[in-house]
Structure formats: structure tokens, C-alpha cells
């Protein structure tokens, strides 16, 4: 049962991170390679708010709101300038943004390993979730938050007017604009939501395990999960995360822990060869990449 719990926790981590890749790609067709850095920035925003207040009920929501705002600003101040440029130019811009953010984080927060949970007085205890299976309380929260985020996103995209506009902008931006949809507003919103979900992942990971620049690499490890599922499918991100996490945990347990680092990318390569648009992605989307 411990293996099942381990798979669920790891897939929740990957799913919460990878939905940011999917949202931005699905709506604006931009592959955001700064997602790991933006996730890390979200975690550092929590560290910053924790230095002002030790109340987690204040520090976490304030950091989340700041993340949401920063995501929108990234689009409005930077990515908006890429409108009309090639997709490659937009991707290169996200790479440059990532490098910039790494440098700024060291300047403002230093490279030291830090623990936002300490000033907030949060202690991650051990919880029995299944017979013979224990996880940390923060991992349990992460699983619940991931479920809530995905349920909210599905509901938002399916049922709300803004969600409908977002889907329209993703499917046919020209037609959507002709119908009066404010594309820049939609794109700013999707960048904000993507940064918000990534930041929540970063905050929960850093509350559980501490915070340093290696968080970027964890963000990158979730990328194969998004691609395996299909870059324009939220359901695909969920299933892709489950596949990658299950492969990783089972190989650690039964074959060789070293394979954990390689397998997500091996699965990605296999998927790109066999079904390049991913399990739930669309061919049309790939052509546009």
C-alpha cells in the first residue's frame, strides 16, 4: 500500500505543476519553459510574506494573490510583445525570462536552503492514509489541493463564460477576436492562473521539503508528464502524471533508483515517437508547434 500512496503523492506533484504548462499552451500555443522558475518565484513569495507575518492563513493567500498578479504581469509586460512573432521567439523569451528570474532570486533571497514552514510554524507530521501506508500531512494537503485545482479548472473551462472564451481563444484566436473576445485579457488571465497553480505547487513542496533553486529542476521533471498526456489536454496532464509517477516509483522500488531520473524522459521519447501529440492531445495542436 505504501507504493500506492507514493505513486499518488508523486503524481499529484507532477499534475499540479504540469497543468500550468498545459493551460498556457492550450490557450496561447506558447510552450512556457520558465514555468519551473515561476513556480520557484511563487515559493519565494511565500518566504517573503512569511517574513512579515507568522500566520499561514495570511501569508499563503497573500503569496498566492501576488503570484496571480505576477503571472498576469509577465504576460502584459513581456509576452504580449511577442504577439505576432513566431512561436519560437515566444519560447526563447520564456527561456530568457527563466534565466533572469534565477539570477534575481539569488540576488534578493540568496542561494541558501530555506524553510518557509519554520516562520509560519507549520510542522509536517506523518499521517496514515491507507493500511500500512504513511505520508506527510503536507503531502496529503498537496493531493487534496491538486484534486481541487483540477476540479475547479474543469468546471471553470466547461461551465463559466470566461472558460468558454478561453477555449474559444485556444481553438481559433482570429475568430474569437472577431466575436469580440479580448484576447490579451484572456491570455493575461491564463498566465495568471498558470503561475498561480505552479506557485501553489512550489509553496506546498517548499513547506514540506524546504526551498532552494533545485525547485526549478522539479518543475522541469513535470514537463514530460504534460507532454505524455498531450500538451493541450488537462485530463492528459493528469493521466500523464500518473503514468510517469507510477513508472518512477515502481522502478525505484523494484529495479534501480537511478532510473527515476531517466524514466520520465524515456517515456517522453517513446511517446514522441509513437504518438507525438500525446495520449489526449490533438494532432492539430502538434502541427502548430
Amino acid at each position, binding site marked *: 500500500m505504501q507504493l500506492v500512496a507514493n505513486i499518488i503523492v508523486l503524481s499529484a506533484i507532477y499534475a499540479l505543476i504540469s497543468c500550468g504548462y498545459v493551460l498556457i499552451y492550450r490557450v496561447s500555443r506558447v510552450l512556457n519553459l520558465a514555468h519551473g522558475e515561476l513556480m520557484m518565484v511563487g515559493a519565494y513569495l511565500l518566504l517573503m510574506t512569511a517574513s512579515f507575518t507568522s500566520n499561514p492563513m495570511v501569508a499563503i493567500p497573500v503569496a498566492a494573490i501576488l503570484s496571480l498578479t505576477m503571472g498576469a504581469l509577465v504576460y502584459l509586460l513581456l509576452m504580449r510583445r511577442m504577439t505576432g512573432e513566431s512561436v519560437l521567439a515566444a519560447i526563447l523569451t520564456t527561456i530568457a525570462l527563466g534565466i533572469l528570474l534565477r539570477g534575481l532570486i539569488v540576488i534578493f533571497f540568496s542561494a541558501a536552503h530555506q524553510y518557509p514552514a519554520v516562520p509560519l510554524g507549520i510542522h*509536517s507530521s506523518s499521517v496514515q492514509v491507507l493500511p500500512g501506508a504513511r505520508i506527510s500531512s503536507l503531502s496529503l494537503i498537496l493531493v487534496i489541493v491538486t484534486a481541487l485545482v483540477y476540479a475547479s479548472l474543469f468546471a471553470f473551462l466547461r461551465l463559466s463564460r470566461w472558460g468558454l472564451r478561453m477555449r474559444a481563444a485556444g481553438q481559433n484566436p482570429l475568430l474569437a477576436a472577431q466575436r469580440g473576445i479580448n484576447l490579451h485579457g484572456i491570455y493575461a488571465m491564463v498566465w495568471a492562473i498558470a503561475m498561480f497553480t505552479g506557485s501553489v505547487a512550489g509553496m506546498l513542496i517548499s513547506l514540506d521539503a524546504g526551498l532552494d533553486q533545485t525547485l526549478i529542476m522539479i518543475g522541469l521533471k513535470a514537463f514530460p508528464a504534460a507532454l505524455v498526456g498531450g500538451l493541450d489536454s488537462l485530463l492528459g496532464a493528469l493521466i500523464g502524471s500518473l503514468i510517469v509517477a507510477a513508472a518512477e516509483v515502481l522502478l525505484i522500488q523494484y529495479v534501480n533508483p537511478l532510473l*527515476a531520473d531517466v524514466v520520465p524522459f524515456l517515456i517522453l521519447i517513446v511517446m514522441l515517437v509513437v504518438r507525438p501529440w500525446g495520449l489526449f492531445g490533438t494532432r492539430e495542436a502538434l502541427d502548430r508547434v
Partner: protein
Amino acid sequence: MISRTIALAAAAGLLGTAAGAQDAYRIGLSGALTGPVAGSYAPAIEGLQLYINRLNEGGGIDGHPVELIVLDDSGEPSRGATNSRRLLGQEEVVLMINASLSSTYAPMMADARRAGVPLLFAASACPAEVYPPAEPLLFCTTAFAARYDSQATLDFIEAQAGTDISLGLSAMAIPLSRGEIEAAEGLATERGMRPQAPTIVPPPTADYTPFATTISQAGADWVYSWAPWVTEVRTFEALRRLGWEGEYIAWAHLEAEGELARLQDEGFYAIGANSLFAEDLPVHQEIRAAAEAAGATYAPDQMAEGWIAGLVIDAALQSAGWPADAEAVNAAMENLNVDTQGLRGGPIEWTPENHFRATQYYRVYRWNADEGAIDVVQDWAAYTVE
């Protein structure tokens, strides 16, 4: 007229700088100030900078300041190589210092050999070339000592629990860490312990629980980890969350002091070669004061490695005299005995054959819940380096 005055002032400034540089001992450092591993190196670099600043404020060495040129390599070998070429070719340093990942060693060592300039490893694991019989030009002050660390750790475990134990082993998927833990596996077997196959954790890892599960399910009584701090401590925390109640011993990296206080777990031991600041020796107070005066970025208790490197560089340059070239500095470093003022269990002694140290000292610490403080579980144990 104004522009002419500015030009003259600028020229005078340049001449002044050049004269100042000519009067200074020029030494250069390439280190991981940024990048994913910077947290393990940047505090030591800051400690060295504080030492050099303090030295210069006191008049330098026989009236000559020490100019420390610090370049960032982000832990990348290619940038390390670029930095060493700049330090040797443009800056003409008389001593190079490496404070970065072991993957940056090879290019810097090759450049140092070509230029005949000594290279000091001051923040990461000492390379094999500094142990007897030492290779010329390569020196190391860092606390780590491959093989000796595992020997001392296993001696401690044996003293605590005997040899009838199942020993879990954890390493990071980097050559240095894997090599040491695989050596520990052999040493443990020779002693009659039952070592598990090492659990090698790739960097970075989103969740350490799957790795901890393999160790826990194999029934480890003790776990030994010799890896970067992140792997050591997160594996331990994951084990505890699984309900594992055994004892865990890890190498005391520069983060150890703060982390022992954070974890507050009596089953977590840190073995290392540096004294902790909880001891509050005069040298600890001196480092704290220097850090406070400079508004340092990192915690003073993470600066011991840099300060020790400063003590050694100070002694080497004094011994080399003025004017010092690389040859004189190398000759001075080959016959050096530096009092570490309590930061280590004994002095750093270098001879032409041994560029590591003649004797390596280890201490073991853990958290004492009753006293709410860090305890010395085992005082300095000496190991002769042969």
C-alpha cells in the same frame, strides 16, 4: 577644461588602481555563487571574502593587501574552465581557489598544471590528488576526506550499536557520493555489519518517500548518508514520516548546525570535521562579528570552511614573502602548519607529500531534547592520513 580635468582625474584613478594592484597579492577564486548548488558553496566563499577583508583592514600582509578576485561558475565545468583561464591569463593570480562542484575540478586542475600556479580546493570534497603521495600544485582545506569519513562513521556506529546491525546506505547520484557510499558498503561488510545495497537518489527529487521506502522496508537499524545535504536530510525526514524509528548519521555539511536545531531529533547524528558555533569559541565570535559588520548574506555558522581557507591563504602568503610569485606560494604551501583556532580538531599540516592534512579529526553531534541544544556525542577522534 572640465572634460580635460575629468580625463586627468580618470587617468590618475587608473594609475592609482594599477599601482594598488601591483602592490597586492592577487589571488582568484572560481565558485558556485549561483545555480542549483550555490547554497553549498556561496556561504564558504562569503566566509573567505570576510576573512580577506578583515586581513586587509588590518594592513594586509606586511603592508601588502590581498586582492581576491571572485568569479561565478554556477557549478558548470565550462564556466570553471573559462574562469581559470581568465584568472591565470588576464589577472595573473599567484594562487587559484576552487569553491565549486567536483565536475569543475578537471579543467581548473589542467590549467593550473599548465601555468604552474597552485590550486586550493576550499569548499568541496578534496580530490584524490591531494592525498599522499600528493600531486604538486594541488592543495585542499575542505573538511571532507573520502574513505576516512566512512571509516570514522562506521567506528562511531560500531561503538554505539556493535556490528550486528542492518545498515542502510544513501547517496546522491554523483560520482563522489556514490563512490564513498560504495566504499562504506565494503567497509561495513568487513566489520560484520549487514549493509543494504546503497540507495542512490538522483538530484533533484520531488519526493524522497519512494527512496526512503526501500530503505525502511529493508529493515535498516542505522542509515549512513554521505551526500550533499539536501539528499541527506530529506531522505531522513522521509524515513521519519514513514514511521521509521532507527538511527541516522550524515556528514555534517555547513548547513548542519541550523538543521540539527530545526529537526530536533535525537536519532539524527551529524559527523564532521568542523566545530559548531554553539561552542562559541573566540574564533566563532570573530566570524560572527565580521559577518554582522559586513551585513553578510549567509549565516555565520556556514562560513567556517571559507574562514579556514582564509587562515591557510594568510599563512601561505606570509611564508612566501614579497614579491610573491606562484612558485614561491607553492613552495610555501608545501611546508605549512596552520592553527585552525578550534575550527577543526587540530592544525592543517602540509608537506611535499601530503596536501590534505597529516591528521583528520572527527566529531559527532546530535540534538539533545532535554537541554534544547546541540550535544557533542563523540569528541574529536584523530585519524592519521597515510
